[in-house]
């Protein structure tokens, strides 16, 4: 049953179809798409390069801006960003920018291009805690400026949520491996199985480095009090990690209840369907008009036959049976399932990292600095959208902030 899960759900473009899509682009003046990417991607420029058959140049445009260009191409909710202002919408539908970017980065990989270059050593060292998107981008940005970079990752493999959270059908592991390789090729060292605060202290990192970036991510899934200690309940991020680790080899019952309406919930829904689960009901607090999940992910889940019930709150849990009440209309729904998966948000764990506190699942940090002048933050614990592209943005921002503060020879 895992075959479908292991294949990319959306087919990539071919050289022919990418040119067709690029030729739909209107090559606008002051292109709106190029103003709406948190990571500063310039789709107007790379689509133009594709249009004029300069695929290698297009790859340079993408890669020099974003070391995770191939990952973002696959997972970015582009309808919220670059595609939002696409002038083509005035004729029919926006350009599929993500898929064009995916073709370009795949082309780059197939052709073995080495676009990013390590900077001339500037004698400064930076330690980064975590190896998710923010950490990887900060590492790449600083390594290109000549910094010596060490990453500390608690897990056995690097990538954070990219590796353990985003399902294989949406983000193949080999893509994550490839982009981490682009980072390590810049001389960045990654220390695996190393928890800061346990295996190495923050003080030690501070004394060995000119700056420390905390980019630990919100990798822990939230629990709701009513569901605590219920043996039928699994937290969404734990479930997704289990499936990805085992390459889809997990036993699942026929009837599953999912609770949550964000991208993680949709990832769970689609994963379950691709693994062959017959009946899935997803009950969501938000109504459709206020959904947080990207439209594409919602569409994928619905197309695969997931039943999504919007506007309901769980009010009572009795083993496998959950009772929901509508938020505004009087009425309730009772669902009994063999398994319940909770996708109601994540929080970061900063245990052992004194100086950063978590309040209501968010860090108390404003911006990228902490009370300690040597310690910076990036990723989920800096306050931005919890998307990969926003994490990349924080990585770039914190890198340029550090560069402006400590500079280099």
């Amino acid at each position, binding site marked *: 049953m895992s075959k479908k899960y292991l294949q990319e759900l959306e087919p990539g473009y071919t050289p022919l179809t990418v040119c067709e899509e690029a*030729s739909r682009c209107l090559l606008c003046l002051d292109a709106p798409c190029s103003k709406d990417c948190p990571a500063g991607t310039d789709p107007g420029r790379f689509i133009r390069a594709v249009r004029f058959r*300069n695929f*290698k140049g297009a790859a340079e445009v993408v890669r020099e801006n974003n070391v995770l260009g191939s990952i973002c191409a696959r997972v970015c909710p582009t309808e919220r960003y670059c595609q939002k202002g696409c002038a083509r919408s005035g004729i029919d539908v926006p350009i599929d920018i993500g898929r064009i970017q995916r073709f370009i980065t795949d082309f780059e990989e197939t052709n073995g291009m080495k676009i990013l270059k390590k900077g001339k050593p500037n004698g400064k060292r930076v330690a980064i805690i975590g190896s998710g998107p923010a950490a990887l981008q900060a590492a790449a940005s600083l390594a290109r400026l000549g910094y010596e970079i060490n990453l500390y990752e608690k897990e056995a493999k690097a990538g954070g949520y990219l590796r353990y959270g985003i399902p294989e059908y949406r983000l193949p592991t080999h893509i994550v491996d490839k982009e981490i390789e682009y980072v390590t090729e810049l001389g960045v060292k990654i220390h695996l199985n190393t928890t800061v605060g346990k295996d190495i202290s923050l003080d030690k990192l501070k004394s060995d480095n000119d700056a420390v970036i905390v980019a630990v991510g919100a990798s822990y899934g939230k629990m709701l009090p009513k569901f605590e200690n219920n043996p039928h309940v699994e937290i969404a991020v734990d479930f997704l990690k289990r499936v990805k680790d085992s390459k889809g080899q997990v036993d699942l019952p026929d009837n599953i209840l999912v609770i949550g309406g964000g991208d993680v919930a949709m990832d769970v829904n689609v994963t379950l369907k691709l693994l062959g689960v017959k009946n899935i009901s997803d009950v969501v607090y938000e109504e459709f008009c206020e959904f947080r999940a990207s439209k594409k992910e919602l569409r994928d889940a619905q197309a695969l036959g997931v039943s999504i019930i919007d506007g309901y709150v769980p009010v009572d849990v009795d083993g496998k049976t959950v009772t929901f009440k509508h938020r505004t209309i009087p009425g309730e729904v009772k669902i009994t399932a063999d398994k319940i998966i909770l996708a109601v948000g994540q929080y970061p764990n900063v245990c052992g990292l004194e100086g950063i506190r978590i309040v209501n699942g968010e860090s108390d940090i404003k911006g990228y600095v902490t009370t300690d002048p040597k310690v910076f933050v990036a990723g989920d614990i800096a306050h931005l959208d919890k998307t990969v592209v926003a994490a990349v943005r924080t990585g770039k921002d914190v890198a340029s902030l550090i560069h402006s503060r400590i500079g280099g020879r």
Partner: protein
Amino acid sequence: MIKKDLSINFLGVRFPNPFCLSSSPVGNCYEMCKKAYGAGWGGVVFKTMGYYNFVVDEVSPRFDKLNKENTPFVGFKNMEQIAEHPLDENLADIRRLKKEFPYQVLIASIMGSNDKEWEELARLAEEAGADMLEMNLSCPQMTSHAMGSDVGTNPDLCRRYCQAVKRGSKLPVLAKMTPNITDMIPVAIACLEGGADGIAAINTVKSICNIDLDRKVGMPIINGKSSISGYSGKAVKPIALRFIQQMRADERLKNVAISGIGGIETWEDAVEFILVGSSTLQITTAIMQYGYRIIDDLRNGLMHYMDEQGVDHLSDLVGLANDNLIPAEELDRDYKIYPEINVDECIKCGRCYISCYDGAHQAIKWDADKRLPSVNKEKCVGCLLCYHVCPSGAIKMGEIAFKPGRQGQRKAEDIIH
């Protein structure tokens, strides 16, 4: 971002890269040329200057375009003549541009209607600081028959005007050819005899793009009428490449310096012009459609190509295809290549069957139940029309069959690349 030296020496002038605006609406004034230089163009051929007494009086509207399916600008028709600004204003613009952009090339395009005007225009352009002159012997939409492509088909007149220009200036001179002629070679030779140093080819092709079906008038309609005028853009590229190749293949013109013009839009087009012998390149239609910014991918794409080819000097690429274009009677006619249909990639549209039956040799069999084509080798002549019409790339060049008794020593890899 890749960095490669794209500079080239052309008739003693160093071009930072081979890409120039051609003499046309895109290089009509100081502001336009300034923006083009800023965008990274290697040179500008400033829009053709006529003599003091020639008054340009343009029509409105003045353009038309040819579309095919959903692709606009397959070809472009233009009725504009030479520069509409007074000569002194153009010369002042050239002076100012050369002062501000000393390292980018400025070529002054000129057009007189008699010896004296040609000579005087050459002198004035050199005085204004131009690096090179281009003689416009080829504009097909002039309102005077003593100017433009009517002159460019007359070798004697071309020779004479080249002599006049050389009397007026010491600058290197390009003679710009009209394609509205069967054989360009006598004109090109006459120009070189007259003192021209190199050839610019091609100017636009005389055309009618479309006819308005209701009003029975060519397009664009100007008070109920229209005229034949110059056609440019991607559609003329094959014609331009042919003329350039023919000149380079002629013993008397071997290694002639050429500035290639005609439908260049991408770096791949540019490379084609270089491979048939162009050292510099000129572009208008693609700029009119997309703007000066196309220089980004022209330059970057050419750098990547040089990198792939292991070439450090652009000049090493000039003319590399010339010897591979030979007369039809010298081609190897000993074999045919059968198409190979990959069933897994076939999308079952049947277009190969239709084209083979109606346009070739009825050599594709069609399984109507499975909707699958196959090749009948008895009938197939190896024309490969099917390969060209297949929309999914499922048809490739397959088995090579030698005609009876004509085996030869060639290997498959020599024949199919």
